[in-house]
């Protein structure tokens, strides 16, 4: 049995085999191209009809014709900006630690390896799992407060009790200032005034003495209202009754608790807001950014590191002046690709935000939001076919955003592709 096998000895056979292998390869390659073309064609066919300016600037609506995508687009952008501004510095920092600060000490080196192993594993964790993690970590902060709607700590918000006053309009009293004459009025609170019952703008009574008077007269008053000096008849009333008095708010009035949140409103736990969504996306892309940054750093030749160190650089100076600048194009490319992944993620955001009918763009970091993939998911799941076309339009927008991200990454890579010494 030591004879040479004869199977492929014929040239013809060999050539046929060679050819057929090429054909198989071409077929395999064309399969993916055909699939992509069919997909894009179908989506364009379905979605182009609905895609117009009104769709881009409109809000979701109960009728398919009026449905727009603006809140989802803005929500996605917010979440992505939050994600990028946390994930990129954190990712680069971690990559620098792992690549440039390899410890000499044996145990530290073990810890180092352990971190590296974990990050490599984290990159393969399905994003739904990160959604659950985000839910515990960011939405409820491991349950620091009993309800997500009642934050344990918050900043940038004023709570009001709103009372309907005798004029029929209402007045807001800050919780801390109950039964004090100084109340905060809704801007331009209107009331009837004077014998002619004219409509005038009201303001709080600020003079403590005057408030005392009112309080004595109307025991259940928690706030007194007066008119602006420019109100008609103010002069006469002032002369007659020392100070004009328009009305008061009764303590027995049923308050309606409202809160006014500033643009910088923050609270802990984050709740189901855009910050929690962005942070969860951060968890998803962080391992990707770390690994791609590590690869870029590793591509910087060691001779440059040694050159800088030999000139008397500290390690930090070496990183800051040499390694990082050399690696930054690769890091940017990796980060942009990671961001395009974040924009396309539906599962974690679904867990954080849920499907909510949102017709506004988020006003602060804790505000409810929706994102493009989620909105598409919502539309596509509705029974009416008209909404399926809306979903296709949404997919076109999402694909356009993703493709432009990828194009940007390619451009950066090509512009900065230069040899490193």
């Amino acid at each position, binding site marked *: 049995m030591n004879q040479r096998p004869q199977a492929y000895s014929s040239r013809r056979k060999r050539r046929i085999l060679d050819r057929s292998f090429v054909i198989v390869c071409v077929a395999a390659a064309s399969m993916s191209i055909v699939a992509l073309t069919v997909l894009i064609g179908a989506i364009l066919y379905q979605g182009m009809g609905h895609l117009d300016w009104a769709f881009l600037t409109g809000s979701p609506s109960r009728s398919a014709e009026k449905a727009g995508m603006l809140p989802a687009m803005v929500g996605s952008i917010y979440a992505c900006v939050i994600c990028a501004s946390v994930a990129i510095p954190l990712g680069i920092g971690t990559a620098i630690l792992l690549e440039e600060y*390899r410890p000499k000490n044996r145990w530290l080196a073990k810890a180092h390896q352990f971190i590296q192993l974990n990050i490599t594993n984290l990159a393969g964790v399905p994003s739904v799992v990160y959604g659950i993690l985000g839910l515990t970590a960011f939405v409820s902060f491991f349950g620091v407060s009993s309800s997500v709607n009642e934050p344990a700590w918050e900043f940038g918000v004023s709570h009001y009790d709103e009372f309907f006053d005798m004029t029929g309009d209402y007045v807001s009293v800050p919780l801390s200032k109950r039964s004090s004459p100084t109340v905060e009025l809704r801007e331009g609170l209107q009331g009837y005034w004077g014998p002619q019952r004219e409509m005038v703008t009201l303001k709080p009574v600020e003079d403590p003495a005057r408030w005392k008077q009112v309080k004595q007269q109307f025991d259940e008053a928690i706030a007194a209202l007066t008119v602006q000096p420019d109100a008609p008849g103010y002069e006469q009333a002032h002369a007659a009754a020392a100070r004009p008095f328009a009305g008061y708010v009764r303590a027995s009035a049923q308050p309606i608790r409202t809160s006014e949140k500033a643009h910088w409103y923050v609270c802990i736990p984050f709740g189901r807001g855009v910050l929690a969504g962005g942070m969860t996306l951060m968890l998803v892309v962080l391992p990707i950014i770390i690994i791609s940054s590590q690869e870029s750093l590793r591509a910087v030749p060691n001779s*440059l590191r040694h*050159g800088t160190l*030999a000139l008397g650089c500290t390690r930090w100076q070496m990183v800051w002046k040499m390694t990082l600048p*050399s690696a930054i194009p690769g890091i940017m490319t990796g980060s942009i690709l990671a961001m395009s992944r974040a924009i396309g993620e539906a599962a974690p955001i679904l867990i954080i935000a849920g499907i909510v009918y949102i017709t506004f763009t988020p006003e602060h970091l804790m505000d409810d939001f929706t994102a493009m993939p989620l909105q598409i998911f919502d539309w596509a799941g509705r029974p009416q076919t008209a909404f399926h076309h809306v979903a296709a339009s949404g997919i076109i927008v999402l694909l356009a955003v993703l493709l432009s991200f990828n194009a940007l990454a390619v451009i950066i890579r090509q512009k900065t592709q230069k040899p*490193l010494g």
Partner: protein
Amino acid sequence: MPMTQSEDIVRNKVSSAHVAPPALQVEFEDSDEAAGQAPPTALKLQKFNSWYGNYHALHDIDMDIPEKRVTAYIGPSGCGKSTLLRWINRMNDLIPSARATGMLHLHGLDLLDRDYDVVDLRRRVGMVFQKPNPFPKSIYDNVAFGPRLHMRLSRSDLDQIVERSLRRSSLWDEVKDRLKDSALGLSGGQQQRLCIARAIAAEPEVLLMDEPCSALDPKSTAAIEELMDELRNDYTIVIVTHNMQQAARASDYCAFLFQGDLIEFGDTKQVFTNPRNEQTENYITGRFG
């Protein structure tokens, strides 16, 4: 010539790629030392040992490297020349398994002291690598890198330092019109001279060069040798070379290392014309290594 058995083994082990060069034709000038004045010592090594893990790379090296002279390390590949050189500016710190014992002093300063600031040491001891490693920056920024790191300088002072360093490394005339161009556009020899300019711009006391000419053509090599000749008045230079003629021409002192041992160290003229050790003689005449 009687040949001991161990040398015989060495001869067979080491490839004979090196054809014996023609007898060294180098004119030795009479140095000051010949007049009996020993120059002051810059680097003092005593019982210096070095390991990579369990591998004992250098054994009991005793050596006084004189100040403001060119000292050459020669020896076959793998004998520990680079290791010895890299301890002088502690570049071996970058190799986790490397450690050293014994004494290594620079002007009385213990370089092996764990608490000694290597950053400060590397400021005082510049290094030129075997492979030119210009930074991916402009020519100007390459040379200005060290000064900018260590000093606050006005623009004109910096310009001056850059020009002086480039002149000293005889690169100025070639690059004076393209200082803002990338250093990566220079030829290999120019790049190496740029690296030398970069090292001397930081004003070190000692300049270490690990086979600086191994990637260069004869003309660039000559330029660098000329440069060393010029720099020897101001710097203590330690150079590793595989080129015997270069060692003979350019150095004042010469150390021959073999398998981690310092076989011979002395005046270059003496080492080349009248080696005390047989192995040295065999090596420099190209009989092995």
